[in-house]
């Protein structure tokens, strides 16, 4: 039976998701000695875009207009599968971890097609980079999941991040630490943050995620921005889930721990952006292979325990 806490924690995440990119930007600005945009900037942007009219390229088809919906729908679907309250997700079943990863892939596929739908070289370039880097991120994510499966004996995200994970920390802290690092690297790549992508860049040739959405405008752009923020929150929730197993905590505390954890993840993303530059594109696959190797190392540690 679905507990109500799962519902309202999901609601909480849906509301605070746009806060995270703002926090990351603020941290970065602070570190680089600037004032930066308000933390709530994304909320203002979304409000403004919501009231605007859209502009479409004459080249585009329905794919371009459906993709923003797909981005939000898939991120929302993925959020329903993650045990946000630390106990149970809204929807859980054996093997839901595969559904989680592939739902996000569906959103990415829609966005990449929308980029190609415009017929623009820039957006084609961004699409190409997006699929390249996500290809390298996928094995890292799955190896991390596989390790959690081995440690907890559960094939469902709710079990993998449940009480069994708490006891697993006692046995295999090293493996879990490796997974947490690998997951953080995947989070940076999947959410188009430094050092893989730079959300602040305004030179089309160097962008990845931003350049795909170059032609989107109005409420559609708002949907994409919100969907991206939600995706960051969902990945952040996974990271918090590994680091802080909350199944034993009382309910309000668990939700508070999630919110606090998400804030810390956003600040960590901001710190990374503040202290280092974007990698050369050719180095990015190496960065992501490193994430896979860390996750594989964790899997080996657990397999040959």
């Amino acid at each position, binding site marked *: 039976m679905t507990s109500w806490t799962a519902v309202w924690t999901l609601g909480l995440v849906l509301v605070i998701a746009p806060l995270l990119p703002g926090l990351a930007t603020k941290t970065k600005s602070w570190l680089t000695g600037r004032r930066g945009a308000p933390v709530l900037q994304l909320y203002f942007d979304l409000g403004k875009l919501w009231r605007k009219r859209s502009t479409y390229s004459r*080249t585009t088809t329905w794919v371009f207009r459906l993709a923003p919906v797909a981005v939000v729908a898939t991120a929302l679907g993925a959020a329903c599968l993650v045990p946000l309250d630390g106990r149970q997700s809204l929807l859980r*079943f054996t093997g839901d971890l595969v559904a989680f990863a592939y739902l996000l892939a569906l959103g990415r596929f829609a966005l990449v097609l929308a*980029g190609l739908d415009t*017929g623009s070289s820039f957006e084609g370039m961004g699409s190409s980079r997006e699929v390249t880097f996500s290809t390298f991120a996928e094995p890292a994510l799955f190896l991390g999941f596989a390790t959690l*499966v081995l440690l907890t004996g559960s094939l469902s995200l709710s079990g993998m991040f449940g009480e069994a994970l708490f006891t697993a920390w006692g046995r295999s802290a090293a493996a879990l630490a490796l997974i947490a690092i690998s997951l953080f690297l995947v989070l940076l790549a999947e959410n188009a943050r430094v050092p893989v992508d730079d959300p602040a860049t305004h030179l089309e040739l160097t962008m990845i995620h931003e350049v795909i959405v170059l032609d989107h405008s109005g409420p559609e752009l708002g949907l994409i921005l919100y969907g991206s923020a939600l995706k960051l929150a969902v990945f952040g929730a996974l990271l918090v889930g590994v680091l802080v197993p909350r199944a034993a905590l009382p309910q309000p505390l668990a939700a508070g721990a999630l919110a606090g954890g998400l804030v810390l993840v956003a600040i960590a993303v901001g710190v990374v952006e503040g202290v280092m530059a974007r990698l050369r594109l050719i180095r990015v696959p190496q960065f992501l292979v490193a994430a896979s190797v860390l996750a594989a190392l964790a899997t080996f540690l657990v*397999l040959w325990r």
Partner: protein
Amino acid sequence: MTAFFLGIALIVAAGAAAWLLQGRTRLADSVFATLAALGCAAGLVPAVAVLVGGRGSVGLSWGMGAPGGTWAFGIDSLSAVFLVVVLGVGLLNVLYGIAYLAPERAHRAVGSAHFLTCLFLAAMALVVTAQATMPFLVAWELMALTAYLLVVFEDEQAEVRRAGLVYLAATHVGALALVAMFALWGTWAGGFTFSALGRASLPASGAAVLSLALVGFGLKAGLVPLHFWLPGAHASAPSHVSGLMSGVMIKTGIYGLLRVISLVRGVPAWWGWAVLTLGILSGVLGVLWALAQHDLKRLLAYHSIENIGIILLGVGAGALGVAYREPAVAVLGFAGAVLHTVNHALFKSLLFLGAGAVFRATGIRVIDRLGGLARRMPWTWVAFLVGSVAIIGLPPLNGFVSEWLVYQALLRGGFAVSPVRVAVLGVAALALIGGLALACFAKVGGVVFLGEPRSAAADEGREPTAGYLLPMAVLALACAVIGLLPSIAVQPVLAIAGSIAGASLETLQPALGPVVRAAWGISLVSGGVVLLLTVGWVWRRALERRRSPTWSETWACGYVGPTPRMQYTAASFAAPLLQAFGRVAGVRTERTPAAFHTHPVDLVLEGVVLPAWRHVSRVAEAIRPVQHGRLHTYLLYIVGVLLALLLYLWLGART
């Protein structure tokens, strides 16, 4: 079984009618379509009865006097599911062929091609129902030969003839391996029916049988490195034949492997590891090489190799589960393999039919010369998109369900104490395959259908007729049904997998019960996403009505005159990934200041097979003078051999 043979007879009769009536086009087409549909329906009756009724096998065998021992046919659950693939998906390809071949009437006789297609279909149906060595091999050979004749349909092109020759040579090497396998096995078993083979316990040298099975069936399935015949043959054949070969024929190789596993009862672990490794190799390399292709049909052919890899990951996990006595892993692995076989038949046929529609509409197969077809062929695009999402393995379509089963087999393997737990690392390969497939179909969909047309011919592409669209619609619908209601598929394939693994599903209830229930969870997720998409779309339309949008040019950084040639090309799209994988990607790149070209090479065909073939033909040239057509020297050979034999006998008598 009577219904089955009636169906086969009707299918052959349909082909014969198409051939004999070819003077009267419309009559021939309608008789052909009706008889073929009736035949497939009749043939499906016993298969569906086995699958739905849950009855055991129905069988028929006759004649000790028949050549090669007893000829037995039967349908058990494994045969039944493959029969559904052969006749169900096969029929749609055959019907599509009527519309597809119609424009060819001006150049050549089309009736014979229809006849061959029907023979091909009947042969495949017999392959999966044969229960004895002799009828199996006869049907196998008939399948190979009819497929060859169909591949060289457009035999005025040298490239087509070459692809046909490579296919013919390769398939016979495979057939040879199978003859050797059955001969060895049958000798040990003392009988050549499958039930006799199943009763025999293989001696230690059973390794020979299993290795030969892997070569013989592996060649047909197209696993790396035995795939070299596949891309050429599938690309050269008419599109509906490509659909049949890629969707159905290569699956008979998978059927063979599964049949061998179920007969051997307890495959050794090394074999399971071999299949798993080959599966990973085929999956990763298949999709990587697909990414490098410029020809739409060759690209789809390489994706068949990738999907065979995914199926073999399931078969390998299943075989390991059998070897290490982990029945839950075995059942999940085989179930994933069987379901992916069915799914791949659906979406790969769909994609080939879509590619055929594009080819007929534009006359172009080169991806970089197409573009903008989504506006000109909207329904073909929808069908192709459904096929693409399904083949990547994304929800809410069927490919996701079978990959989900394979993932579970690998992950569940991780719980074991035995070495099978190492198989859990296979999830990384499966994830990589998924990522690469997404990249590849983003490239195909984006460059072929979206953007602006890159050539005048692409600009003139128009939606094909209902004869093309209806078979595609049925296939797309089937993909959606299995994707949205996986329960209807998961339960039956688990039962089939149980029978292959020789495990009783009742005792596995604790492990498999959650999987059956989880199928409904997938329905919720997939249905939920579809619902959200629909709601979002309706909302967006309402919004658009209230504030009419502005239409303008694509943003090009202030440049206002973009041309179609400025669009990103498929070659550029794939370049970063191919570059990252280096030489393994099988692509030669050529860079000039103003241009970037990539040339795909098949590493196995051009690196190994053809050089080896050149050596063989050099040796053959050397001994060629032995056969020159002069009768008296031939008589001399006979006398010589006779003398040698007599000498041998005489020497034998003396000792």
